[in-house]
């Protein structure tokens, strides 16, 4: 029986260490209280501001840490036919999403706004069509395309033609300075 004690003596440290690493990443949230839907107004398309320049409020997107949400984002990306214009991220009719160029900003809330409001020259406004939590999932996935989310949460390859590296394998590309609307 002393063996048992000794075994557990070994077990504890291992367990503790791993517990510290946390398990948020694997949560499957089926009934979503979506992350604070941003007051769309507070999102800027331009760096110019009247009066004293204040930094844009950063809104973290918890889904970027969550493998399930990212996978859902990936599924919705094709279900809602983002593929139609942006293809697998390489761009085509719409601009590429897997590079480091961000016309309307690379922050989660910028992407959120872009999806919800739509943008000139072809980006439709999905506001009211897609529940907010799915927009956030899409936003998280879009950022994963250019390696801006934790590797351990990013999606792997799909069961389909291999047209690009899996998001989990792409190198993180720090976003370049926000570009200009074309």
């Amino acid at each position, binding site marked *: 029986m002393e063996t048992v004690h000794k075994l557990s003596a070994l077990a504890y440290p291992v367990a503790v260490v791993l517990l510290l690493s946390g398990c948020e990443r694997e949560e499957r949230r089926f009934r979503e209280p979506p992350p604070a839907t941003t007051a769309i107004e507070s999102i800027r398309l331009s760096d110019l501001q009247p009066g004293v320049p204040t930094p844009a409020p950063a809104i973290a997107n918890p889904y970027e840490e969550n493998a399930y949400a990212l996978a859902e984002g990936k599924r919705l990306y094709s279900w809602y036919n983002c593929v139609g214009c942006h293809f697998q991220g390489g761009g085509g009719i719409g601009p590429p999403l897997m590079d480091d160029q961000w016309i309307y900003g690379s922050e989660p809330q910028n992407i959120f706004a872009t999806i919800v409001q739509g943008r000139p020259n072809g980006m439709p406004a999905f506001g009211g069509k*897609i529940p907010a939590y799915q927009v956030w999932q899409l936003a998280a996935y879009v950022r994963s395309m250019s390696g801006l989310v934790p590797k351990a949460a990013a999606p792997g390859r799909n069961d389909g033609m291999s047209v690009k590296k899996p998001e989990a394998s792409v190198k993180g590309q720090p976003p370049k300075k926000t570009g200009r609307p074309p």
Partner: protein
Amino acid sequence: MSGFRQRPFEKGIAQPSRSCFEGRTAGGIALSIASSGCSGIQSALDPAGPQAAHIESLWWLMVWVSAAVLLLVTLATLYAVSHGRQARGLDAEPEATPDPVAERKRALIVAIPVGMTIVTLFGLQVASFTTDRTLASLSTDNAVVIDVIGHQWWWEVQYVETTPSLRVTTANEIHIPVGQPVVLRLQSNDVIHSFWAPNLAGKKDLIPGHETTFSFKADRAGVFRGQCAEYCGYQHANMGFLVIAEPPEQFYAWLKKQRAIPPPPDDPIRQHGQEVFLASTCSLCHTIQGTPAAGKVAPDLTHIAGRQTIAAATLPNTPGNRAGWIVDSQRIKPGNRMPPNPLTPQDLQALLAYLGDLQ
């Protein structure tokens, strides 16, 4: 579960399986298998077609043979440990080297049950092979050909026609003509599923990258339930479907009706309902023929009101269940692909009215 939730299959589908239980208690558990020739809408022992019937007879053959074998072995064992020359416990001097002559005699005796085993197994094999043959020999001339595509977690059903316009698409409900063979062409777009309607036939897997075909026949009318038998994710448990076997004329009438495109709604409420449908998330995934809604990733709703169940044979197709499903499907089938739709009461009522009209 859902506040809207009602017992499924109240419309006369559920009753048969009740009687299963009586039959069982009567038989007592030890005999439950033997006594299980009970009726049920989802039972391998209540065949509604030749395939299931052949398998059932093979089943009973095996049951009785097995029962006999089990009985013999058990009796032999009990006798062996309990008969006469009980030992004086463990102190009894062990028989280190049993007399070889006696052992040889015993070998001959043991050879008998061994021989019997081989013969029995051989017999069962023959029986099994003959059944396989009979199942394979089901003729499929003038068969109804149906594409069944597995999705997480519902069944897409398409009646194959040479002219695309005649092609009928529905979901989770397969109408078949009694007495006419049916050929299913099974495919999957995501993971492996398995098509199993026990009353009609065995099961067949839907495997991505492989098209499998599967044919059976119903020889009596009835509503039979089946469900996915290969673990396929969160809602594997609620990936059911109904097979509705009806007399040919009824079936073809149904098919004809399915081909018809429902007329645009005429009264304001339904018109508003259609607007709600088209304006909200619904139209991104669902199709309603005759409207711009042409989503392909979710069940076709063109004739939704004509179906007996929703959510893959999980809920009876009542307005209440429809409402509950639309507003918060995640409470009913956690993890399914339908997002919640927090509609205003007016919009919801209008939408329900519209859908309820899609016969």
